[in-house]
């Protein structure tokens, strides 16, 4: 292979093949794996529009109300004329008020009210209550890897064929009770929808979006190697296509130095001295908040293929990611003390699918006396380290590498289940090894 990799062409080729299978193929399902920022939403919107154009009534299944509303807005943006139905729950405030401004979007809590519309969109939970005499000709199932098998079982009778789109590297669905008794069954209700689908329909066409438009050239190889070892992807941009600079020079403090390191290399590790701490480690929380404050104060400007003119790095382009909700709350409080109120601070679960210029991550294992399966979950670290377009700064206490080495490995093994690869332990080691090259010691 001597040909130069052309990301645009590779992505177009993949998208064309997906749409061909979806619109003209014979298989009942098409599965698309989409790594972080590979244009999943764009694909979903485009497929929806083309199916609607072809006159095929379409239902779209997403997993959360926010995802549903986002899709409705995107569809209306691309084609304001398209009649879209937003099926919602009967709770208070069931949908985003912004939908009220869209003339061709009809909202209802009853599927019957939305008959005859080109596209009807709702959550899997709401669809599960819908009964139809005649199934939809087509469906798009979004975030299919985050959907549980039993949830697909509840809605699969509503459509004849479907396009399943999702990111296999993000957090797996979970259940709050044990489900070991079904482990190894092809239709294990606690498995992901895609696992069950492919176990029963192994011949379905499977595609992969090969290019991440979000992750910069500095991040794509690490994220691809650590989290997608068997389905690698590339960055759509090259080194030098993106640039992050700051008007105010470094004051020599740890936060400023790690910001400069991350601006230069795409990664930064702000390392605090080793210590066992509770989850809301005040020092680490303060370090995260200080980094954010400095990012804002130093007049950041981002240039990229999107905007050759430097775009200011504003609060809405920065996010903080944590493993636990109380950590997010503590970071918000610390930011409020520093006068920062409009930076997104959330857990990995809630950051799934979102995109920022710079992310600041409180490492899930920072300060912990022990690692647990929760903290080692591959998807969690993958989400946290793949939300950024320019740079990712990780705040962490020293000692995590030793913690990982000392992690007892005595996991039970269920016969017949697919081994999830890579496992969190290895992925964590891979990420840490890379971050270690961009280490800055904490000095306030």
């Amino acid at each position, binding site marked *: 292979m001597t040909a130069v990799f052309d990301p645009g062409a590779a992505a177009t080729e993949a998208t064309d093949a997906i749409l061909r299978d979806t619109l003209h193929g014979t298989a009942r399902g098409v599965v698309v794996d989409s790594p972080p920022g590979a244009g999943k939403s764009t694909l979903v919107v485009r497929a929806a529009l083309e199916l609607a154009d072809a006159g095929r009534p379409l239902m779209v299944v997403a997993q959360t109300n926010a995802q549903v509303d986002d899709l409705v807005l995107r569809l209306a943006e691309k084609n304001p004329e398209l009649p879209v139905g937003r099926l919602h729950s009967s709770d208070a405030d069931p949908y985003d008020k912004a939908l009220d401004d869209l003339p061709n979007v009809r909202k209802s809590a009853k599927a019957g009210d939305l008959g005859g519309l080109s596209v009807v969109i709702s959550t899997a939970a709401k669809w599960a209550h819908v009964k139809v005499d005649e199934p939809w000709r087509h469906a798009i199932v979004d975030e299919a890897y985050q959907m549980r098998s039993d949830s697909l079982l*509840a809605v699969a009778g509503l459509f004849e064929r479907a396009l399943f789109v999702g990111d296999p590297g993000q957090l797996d669905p979970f*259940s709050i009770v*044990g489900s070991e008794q079904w482990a190894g069954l092809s239709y294990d209700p606690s498995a992901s929808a895609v696992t069950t689908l492919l176990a029963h329909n192994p011949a379905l066409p499977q595609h992969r979006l090969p290019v991440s438009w979000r992750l910069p050239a500095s991040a794509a190889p690490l994220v691809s190697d650590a989290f997608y070892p068997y389905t690698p992807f590339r960055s759509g941009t090259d080194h030098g296509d993106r640039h992050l600079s700051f008007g105010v020079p470094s004051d020599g403090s740890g936060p400023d130095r790690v910001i400069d390191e991350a601006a230069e290399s795409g990664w930064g590790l702000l390392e605090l001295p080793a210590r066992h701490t509770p989850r809301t480690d005040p020092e680490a929380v303060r370090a995260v908040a200080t980094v954010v404050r400095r990012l804002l104060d130093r007049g950041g400007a981002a240039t990229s293929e999107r905007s050759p003119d430097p775009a200011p790095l504003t609060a809405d382009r920065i996010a903080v990611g944590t493993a636990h909700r109380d950590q997010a709350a503590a970071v918000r409080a610390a930011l409020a003390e520093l006068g920062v109120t409009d930076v997104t601070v959330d857990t990995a679960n809630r950051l799934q699918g979102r995109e920022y210029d710079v992310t600041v991550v409180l490492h899930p294992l920072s300060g912990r006396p022990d690692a647990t399966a929760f903290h080692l979950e591959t998807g969690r670290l993958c989400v946290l380290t793949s939300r950024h377009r320019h740079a990712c700064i990780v705040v962490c206490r020293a000692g995590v590498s030793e913690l990982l080495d000392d992690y007892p490995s005595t996991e039970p093994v269920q016969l017949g289940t697919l081994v999830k690869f890579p496992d969190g332990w290895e992925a964590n080691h891979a990420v840490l090894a890379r971050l270690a090259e961009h280490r800055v010691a904490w000095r306030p």
Partner: protein
Amino acid sequence: MSLIATLARLEAVSTGRAQPIATVRHRRLSERPLVFVPLTTAGEAGAPLGALVGTDRDAPHLLVVPQPRDRDLRFAFLSELADIVLPYIDTYAEDVEAAERNETDPETGKRVKVEVELCADAPQLILPSRAGVDFVRLLGRSMRFRRTAEQDPETPYPAPPRVPLLGRWLTHFGERARVPGSSLLLAMTDVLARHWATGQSTLEDQHLGALLAWIAPPQGETGAEAALRAELARDAQGQLLCPPAGPATDPAFDNKLLAPAFERYDRARTALAAAEDGLEADDRLGDLTAAEREIRALVESRTRPTWDAVWRGLDLVRELPEAGRVEERWTRDRWSFTGHRDRVAAGEPPQPRRDDAVTAANKLAAREREQARLEAQEALDDPLVMAGRRLSGEAFAGEVTEVVMAYSEGKRPSPRPLVTVRTDDRPHLGERAKVFRSLGGKPQSAEFVGYEEALDKGDEDGGVGEDGRDAGALLVLRVLDKMGRGKEPEEGSVPEKGDLVCFTLFEHEQRGGAKLPDPEETPWTHGGPPGEQVSEAADPLTEEDVL
């Protein structure tokens, strides 16, 4: 483990005895439970060695398999077990009351109320430990596909008549035990550990003797000392003073006592078979009986301490008053029991080896719902459990400092009073978050409006007083429902100034999930319909199905 439970464990370490983690009893204990203490043969799947079983603590039935490799003797054991367990179950199956159930009318597809029978009470099986519960499932699995001579005259090794039925019941009990909050089949270690925290790890709590030692140590001994003795102390022959609660036996018992006894039994049997005349046979039968008696004594010596421990555990847990919502959950157990009774009576086949896709999904959904229900109910029933939810920001308690009447907008304004609560708790309240309190056993919902200036806002993050209390916060809630239909709220439906209230961020009642398709309509994504129900074949029998 929540921090409150951790503290209880540490307290147990420092005081030398287990500490309460519940103030009421969160599981139903039947007045007449059937206690079952089984033992199994090492290395054999589902080959019982013996058991104590019964409802009378002073007179358990002792069942023994003097040679576990002998199929006939195993069948005799299972047959005896069926003769004890099934009549016990039958007494509950016969006593019924009238009840209503929602069913889907097959003709109209509408939900209609149907008059049905509901068993007035249900049987309850108590096993010493979780391993015992697993063994119940294993026994159920090993028996329910057996064929009796009546079912199939051709079957090579017919099972005694009631054995397959016992298998179906044990399977049902085992499956029900996976439902959170159910009490049809309980492991004593789980029940005790739900109510007390010991000064050892949860792993060590699996040992019934050690767990009891922490909860009720003998006079003059600490829990730690007593637990250590229960765990490890051996007599001069190297046998554990407190035998394991089973079903697995201690290897030292197997090797030093059981193996020689089996050998004597086998020799006596061989000798009997070789007897050449009646007189000799009589003699040798005496030897065989003696050998069998010896094994029976051995089995009793290893099960009796556990039997007594289970009853002692029952005594301890019974001293706690039953929590308010246990009755409701027990009613669900009664429905479950009645349902299986009806399936057996209707001649349905035994439970399949594996659930189909729809059944599995339904079970998972039901268990998740029951788990959420259990967590909510335990907190509402027990201030100590609620304390844990308050600590984790999922609930708050405090005093009402102000109530301002307000009304909804619209043509018919309804009451929407604003209630200010002063709390030391730190609930994770988002914008317009819904909160709930229990009003006459029903949830009343309110909406979080916002914080009022805190009393002492010296410290941004709330501040912690010297005694570990927060300086406190004032939060305003808008009450949304359960105030009647009138313009003015009904008497007692709105908290008053000075009332102590407790709101939760979690819901008190669980919504029913979506209805899944019938199994015969399993969609293509899940393999399509399972096809014509074929009755499951019995396990193939080999000449010697245990080695």
